[in-house]
């Protein structure tokens, strides 16, 4: 694992935090969009395992992560101050696939994190980004995303900002109105129920879809074989080395979502 110095760790809104880590330029260059790193959040034995986070953005030797506080690991992380050193390991996992077709991004909550770095690096920008959360305060880093001049639809479940409803409802409406013929690809990241709805929409319009999945990771390095995702053809693939992004049609979706 490498030492990385925290230079920023601030609340962006809701339970979302932006963490900035300074690493060697060499290391920073190794990360591709969609890859992740794991962070040892404490020097004690509880929590025992480093927690995985996708790269949100990179500027020179500065890595940015966007994370949501959900449990004890992220709680501890949120209290770490600038100048402290953290142990990290990465890059881990496979980058987002190269999508040749026009595509739409659909993100729920912390699922938005990894697409920042994609926008920074790709020469093939998405047609649109749908970004949904529960309520206004949770819409974070919007200024950052707006810089890329990609059409960005903000959705809140309670209607406190932008379009009211579920992000997948907004996606479906857009597809119905504008993309019936073009058949863009979908690239989606968010909680399981959201991904499930994305797949319903994708099926309706017969769209090729990539899902960014999550699961508890012990190693993140392929060592433990714990992070299996059931495949349609039978057997399993391992999220931490073959994912986290998968072509939906290759997965045994019923078992993924059970």
């Amino acid at each position: 694992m490498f030492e990385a110095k925290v230079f920023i760790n601030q609340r962006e809104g809701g339970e979302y935090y932006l963490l900035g880590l300074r690493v060697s330029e060499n290391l920073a260059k190794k990360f591709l969009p969609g890859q992740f790193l794991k962070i040892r959040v404490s020097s004690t034995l509880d929590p025992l395992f480093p927690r995985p986070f996708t790269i949100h953005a990179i500027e020179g030797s500065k890595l940015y992560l966007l994370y949501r506080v959900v449990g004890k690991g992220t709680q501890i992380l949120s209290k770490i101050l600038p100048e402290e050193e953290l142990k990290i390991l990465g890059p881990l996992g496979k980058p987002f696939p190269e999508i040749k077709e026009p595509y739409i991004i659909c993100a729920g909550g912390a699922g938005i994190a990894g697409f920042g770095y994609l926008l920074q690096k790709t020469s093939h920008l998405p047609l649109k980004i749908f970004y949904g959360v529960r309520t206004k305060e949770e819409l974070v880093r919007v200024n950052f995303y707006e810089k890329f001049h990609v059409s960005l639809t903000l959705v809140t479940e309670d209607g406190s900002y932008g379009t009211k409803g579920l992000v997948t409802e907004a996606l479906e409406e857009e597809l119905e109105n504008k993309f019936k013929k073009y058949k863009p690809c979908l690239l989606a990241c968010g909680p399981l129920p959201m991904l499930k709805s994305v797949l319903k929409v994708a099926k309706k319009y017969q769209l090729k879809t990539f899902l960014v999945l999550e699961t508890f990771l012990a190693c993140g390095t392929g060592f433990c074989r714990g992070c299996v995702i059931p495949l349609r053809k039978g057997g399993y693939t391992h999220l931490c080395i073959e994912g986290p992004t998968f072509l939906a049609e290759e997965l045994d979706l019923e078992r993924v979502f059970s």
Partner: protein
Amino acid sequence: MKEFFLNLGNLKLNTPLMLSSGTWGWGENLSKFLSLAEIKYSIGALVTKGVSLEPKEGNPPPRIAETPCGLINSIGLENPGIKEFKAKYLPPIKLYEIPVIVNLFGEKIEDFVGLAEELKEEVSGIELNISCPNVEKGGILFSDNPKLVKDLVREVRKIWNSFLAVKLSPVGPVFEVAKSCERAESDALVVANTYPALTVLSFKPLKILKGGLSGPAIKPLTLRLVWELSQRVGLPIIGCGGIITGKDALEYLICGAKAVQIGTANLINPKSVAEIMEELEKLLKTYGLSY
């Protein structure tokens, strides 16, 4: 640690640290995280993930969960089967030029014998995982029946001359099983495998994970076993359970182990073994100890 040199049966170790079964994948990614120099400097032997005669796809998810200072796993012995293992996975592992010990499991004694046959002349040693059910005896675990273990080791020993270790389960009649291994001329005991455990993943709907507990939580338990066994059994003991630091490794060595295996630590940090080796050397110097 240039001075270290340990003979276990006809296995020679240059360091007292091994990577334990199932905690470094199939070796594909090892050199991605450890330099060749680090591997050579720190690892005395590599113990592969468990291999069976036929391929096994392993258990459905969820397979792993964190518990207080521990990990529960229920991988289900996912493996490509001995044929593909030999063809595809073993050759790259052997390139590290470190003794390779293959962890074996089967459903009956003949399975183990068959596996050993396949590995003759191929590797430095085998490690028998007896924490698995015997189908011929109604599914009782090998490790629950000392007589069965004796028969198992005897049969495998007949055709296997180089290093043969038995990896004990920490539950059941551990001392009787250890004695059986001694009588049947095992070269060493690996003490021990994971502990049967359960964790609740969700209340509603109720989701639980049953599996084996590893990591720091079990260190005091396995350390006790190593201590007691080393006083009652003549075989060299390889300690394994919750070693995260060089201090942990030294504790095992001081409590009667001749060598140790590192498991869960590899999952926390793939460079663990190199760091443990460095710390161990420092501690030995600090305390003026050797062994």
